[in-house]
């Protein structure tokens, strides 16, 4: 149990670049924009940061490049290949390195031309995929090469067993799209969605249509982590890390062989234990939403609704601001932006700082929030934060 870090580390700065379909610039520029915004948000100087980390899919700039053009000689750089759940893992890594005394303040970023540059899951060589995916030779020859197809296999079974309908998936989309209408920086701001429109949209790969699927955009996000002690030097309101579960795995690397469990089931147990809270203590949530159903499965895993009652929970409007669990309040990856989860982490920090106080975006008086990551059914992580 890692309980001894509870409340001793904080997120002190968040920032993002412009988001668009076509940035017209490089991931390095987007990363610099995001990093400078986060540094300014924290009230720090670039040279206060000694560690730089990022996750990428060979589609970004390196941490060393970013530090260099911020005018900093970094003590530590780390670039990992990863998508969902990497934000939480790198924050945990940063905490560990600060705890060990090797670093003081770490900036973590994700920067990508996810629309105009390399699109996730597109254009890979099929033979490369067979080797890169666990058990790939049993999957790729059958045309299954997209996360929508991999996660969809889980979704169809789960929907069958728990009574979740297409309309319930729609409620997830509608809730987040509604939040995007309050967020002028959301990519789908000005594009509300009705249930009628949702249900009339043809599937790309059943059970998912385009609304069930996350956006693909060009953008950079950054987040700064430091000790609670050092946070006192910052001008921002610190958001403290109560507990984390950095990375949990499905029992089998070839996760299709057991679609009845997901890594999030293991994450939930550990993150609540480390934070010392229960689901009913959570005021606001950022739940990884690469696909609508992924949110529903996590609501079950993290104990926000009982298995079999998740569909009804979202149909009642509980994910909306004003509901029992306001979730992805900036619009999430379905309608705000897409940086493999980091934009959802930025939002939970802003909510817990009450940055939106006095507007219809603020979850009133929220104190404790959860941010979950989902690389897939195979790998997940989460953190619980407080103000």
């Amino acid at each position, binding site marked *: 149990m890692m309980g001894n870090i509870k409340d001793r580390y904080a997120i002190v700065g968040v920032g993002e670049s412009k988001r668009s379909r076509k940035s017209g610039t490089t991931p390095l520029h987007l990363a610099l924009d995001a990093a400078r915004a986060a540094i300014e948000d924290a009230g720090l100087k670039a040279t206060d940061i000694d560690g730089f980390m990022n996750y990428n899919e060979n589609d970004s700039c390196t941490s060393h490049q970013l530090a260099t053009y911020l005018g900093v000689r970094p003590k530590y750089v780390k670039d990992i290949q990863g998508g969902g759940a990497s934000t939480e893992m790198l924050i945990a890594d940063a905490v560990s390195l600060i705890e060990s005394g090797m670093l003081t303040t770490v900036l973590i970023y994700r920067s990508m031309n996810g629309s105009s540059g390399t699109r996730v*899951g597109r254009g890979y060589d*099929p*033979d490369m*995929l*067979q*080797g890169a995916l666990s*058990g*790939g*030779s*049993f*999957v*790729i*020859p*059958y*045309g*299954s*090469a*997209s996360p*929508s*197809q991999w996660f*969809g*296999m*889980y979704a*169809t*079974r789960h929907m*069958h067993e728990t009574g979740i309908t297409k309309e319930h998936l729609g409620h997830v989309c509608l809730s987040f799209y509604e939040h995007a209408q309050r967020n002028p920086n959301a990519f789908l701001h000005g594009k509300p969605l009705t249930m009628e429109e949702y249900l009339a949209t*043809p*599937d*790309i*790969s*059943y*059970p998912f249509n385009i609304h069930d699927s996350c956006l693909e955009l060009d953008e950079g996000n950054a987040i700064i982590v430091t000790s609670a002690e050092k946070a006192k030097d910052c001008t921002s309101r610190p958001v403290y890390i109560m507990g984390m579960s950095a990375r949990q795995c499905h*029992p*089998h690397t*070839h996760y*299709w*062989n057991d*679609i009845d469990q997901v890594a999030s089931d293991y994450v939930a147990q550990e993150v609540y234990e480390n934070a010392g809270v229960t689901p009913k203590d959570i005021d606001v949530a950022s739940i990884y939403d690469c696909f609508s159903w992924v949110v529903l499965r996590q609501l079950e895993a993290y104990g926000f609704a009982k298995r079999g009652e998740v569909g009804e929970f979202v149909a009642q409007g509980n994910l909306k601001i004003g509901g029992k669990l306001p979730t992805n309040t900036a619009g999430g990856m379905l309608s705000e932006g897409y940086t493999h989860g980091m934009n959802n982490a930025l939002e939970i920090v802003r909510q817990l700082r009450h940055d939106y106080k006095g507007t219809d975006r603020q979850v009133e008086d929220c104190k404790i929030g959860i941010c979950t990551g989902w690389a897939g059914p195979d790998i997940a992580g989460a953190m619980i934060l407080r103000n």
Partner: protein
Amino acid sequence: MKHVTTAYQKPIPLKDQDNQPYWDAADKHQLALQKCDDCQAYAHPPGPSCAKCGSENVSWENFGDDIQATVYSYVVSYRPFLPGFQNELPTIIALAQLDDVPEVKIMGNILHCEEKELKIGLPIQMTWVDITEDRALPQWVPVTN
């Protein structure tokens, strides 16, 4: 030598040291599954050792060519995500739960299946499609009558 008139565009399963007995059996229109000699667990997909207990004592069992199963889950893709699927849309990709070894679930396409008859629990049986001169791909078809 058989003459293959139309080049097969879809990805062909790549054999390696762990999966070769499965694909060799498939080429002969048979199913073979890896089994742990210590904990008796069947493994699909096969691996370098048993994923349940870590034992290196794994062997292969041949199940022949009469393979009955039911649909455990499925997706229906209306767009191709890989070469060769563009002319066969929609593509049904399913997990088949074997009648004889329910813990084993094998992914494949369900051929000759109307979307409206597709459902979890649908009885299906394994069939093999000759895709090149020397390779065959296990697939599934609904059980008729």
